[in-house]
């Protein structure tokens, strides 16, 4: 069904007029959201878009290259801290700071990619996990990073304050547009990376690294490149995350956050950009909106309160989100291992040949 007949068909951005139509509609909706969404929902949208960026990056590493990382909260933290510190300590303008921070993060990705050349499976998992923990502790024990008390993000100035040309974004609406533009660029770049020589090399490494090496793919270059690209995405996302939150401390970037990122791409669909976007949106909504105030959910909320009063503790009800997330993770793996994207492909296939 999705057969490609020419190279150009494989690399074109929009496969058909229908896709162009829906993409433009989505863009219109996204750009007009501040007109009809309340401030709380804008905050949620900002968070979703930050998570979309990191999920897209993580999917390049896990979904396309097949290297499991449980340490992406570390790269995320590097992005956030580097951006804020460059802006406050060295007065670097915002755009330069976030790019430099992303490159610092990419450098750490490169470093972590080196042991990944020798490790695989559970051994790689423990190495990335150790990296995430190490970053969290190093930040927590160093005074320049604010220690355990955390850091406050400076006012988001997108101009160049040193030249007296400053433009401070104060409201959630203006931050929304900034993050939206970043997200669109990063997603477009990701879609295109997967269609280049490097992207195809990643997929070859995922399917079989020995075979990839035999056909002339340099594993050293492409495995570390994949880690670096993924860490670059995490760095950008971290820099934006710092301003969405406004205040953060080392505990923000704990192991659970790395697990959430992994869950986002698994739920969305491994190896697909659209999958990471839907997965990030779905999980973020679940974690930060639906189950944050589960008591206010109609019917379900009062039902859960009754249960908790009867047999369990009412204070523990706030931990519902962990239960829901666990069930989503298990359910997806058992019933739809390809995630939301896999379900979408199935639906599409069914309707394409519908009467037959």
């Amino acid at each position, binding site marked *: 069904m999705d057969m490609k007949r020419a190279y150009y068909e494989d690399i074109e951005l929009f496969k058909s007029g229908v896709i162009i139509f829906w993409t433009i509609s989505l863009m219109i909706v996204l750009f007009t959201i501040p007109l009809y969404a309340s401030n709380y929902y804008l905050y949620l949208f900002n968070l979703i878009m930050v998570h979309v960026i990191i999920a897209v990056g993580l999917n390049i590493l896990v979904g396309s290259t097949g290297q499991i990382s449980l340490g992406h909260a570390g790269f995320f933290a590097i992005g956030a801290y580097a951006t804020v510190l460059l802006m406050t300590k060295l007065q670097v303008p915002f755009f330069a700071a976030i790019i430099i921070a992303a490159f610092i993060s990419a450098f750490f990705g490169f470093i972590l990619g080196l042991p990944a050349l020798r490790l695989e499976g559970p051994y790689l998992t423990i190495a990335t996990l150790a990296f995430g923990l190490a970053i969290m502790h190093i930040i927590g024990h160093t005074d320049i990073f604010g220690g355990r008390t955390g850091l406050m993000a400076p006012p988001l100035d997108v101009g160049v304050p040193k030249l007296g040309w400053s433009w401070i974004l104060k409201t959630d609406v203006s931050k929304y547009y900034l993050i939206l533009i970043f997200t669109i660029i990063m997603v477009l770049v990701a879609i295109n990376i997967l269609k280049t020589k490097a992207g195809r090399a990643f997929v070859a490494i995922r399917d079989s690294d020995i075979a990839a090496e035999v056909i002339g793919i340099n594993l050293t270059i492409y495995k570390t490149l994949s880690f670096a690209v993924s860490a670059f995405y995490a760095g950008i996302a971290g820099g934006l995350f710092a301003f969405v939150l406004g205040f953060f401390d080392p505990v923000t970037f704990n*192991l659970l956050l790395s697990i959430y990122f992994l869950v986002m791409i698994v739920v969305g669909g491994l190896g697909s950009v659209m999958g990471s976007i839907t997965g990030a949106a779905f999980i973020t909504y679940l974690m930060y909106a639906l189950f944050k105030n589960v008591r206010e959910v109609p019917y379900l909320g009062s039902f859960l309160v009754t249960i908790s009063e009867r047999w369990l503790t009412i204070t523990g009800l706030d931990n519902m989100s962990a239960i829901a997330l*666990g069930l989503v993770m298990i359910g997806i793996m058992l019933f739809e291992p390809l995630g939301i994207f896999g379900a979408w492909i199935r639906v599409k296939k069914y309707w394409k040949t519908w009467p037959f």
Partner: protein
Amino acid sequence: MPVGQLLIEGLAMGACYGLFGLAVVIIYKTSEVINFAAGEMAMFSTYIVFHMLTVYNCPFWLAFLMALVFAAILGVLVQYIFLRPAKNPTLLGLIVITLGVEMLLMGLASWKWGAEGQAFYLPVSYKVTYEPISGFIVSEWAMAVFITAAVIMAFLYFFFKHTKLGTAMRATQQNKHAAKIMGIQTDMIFAFAWAFSSVIGVIAAMLLSAKAILDPQFMMEPFLRAFAAAVLGGLMSVPGVLIGGAIMGLLENFFGYAWPAWKPITAFVVIVLVLCVRPSGLFAKHYIKKV
């Protein structure tokens, strides 16, 4: 520097990590699943002991036995409900399922018992100490740990070498299909491995809880250390994981004494460095990948 005490404390901690690492290794050996939920399964069973002690005022030995039974049932249930239905799972898929079980159990425990810490006392305390050789202070807790570890090791050795079930487990590990042809019910073996691992996990968790406050996350850090110890030992060998645990405990204690601020991560960093030199752990047999 009180070398003797650091040595004994480190070895005791290491024995705990090694025991808990055994829970990871037993499952990995039979079914090649890394059980990220091991920590939370043990945590949940420890809460059962806590519940029996505080709500029903059971004597400790009864609560402990009940927890072992509960842990075995929990292990079988997790394997039966969550892992068996997975069709042709990948490594990542299995990791995600076990992480999901971890989240689920953590959420359930904090729903039932609240997220705040609870006071939980073992009959053995690490504050009661003896000094058989001067300079080597042994606490009651450390002795309990050493005895438990020795008993479990002896039992495992006997079990894997001399019982029918143990032999069947080893056969399943070597070749699942051949074992099936030989008449071994491999599904039963997997369920048994999970129950077994869960029971060892809860024993290790009980010992570790003496040094921590009982809350729904108290097994997360020890689990990571135990997992690291198991990886260091090669994830496949039973003596390897205990040696890995001992290395982990000693490193942590000595580095922790020298640089207290960096105690939580030094051992991890060392392990990653070791893995860079020997990618499949210290005691794994030479690793050949199937193409």
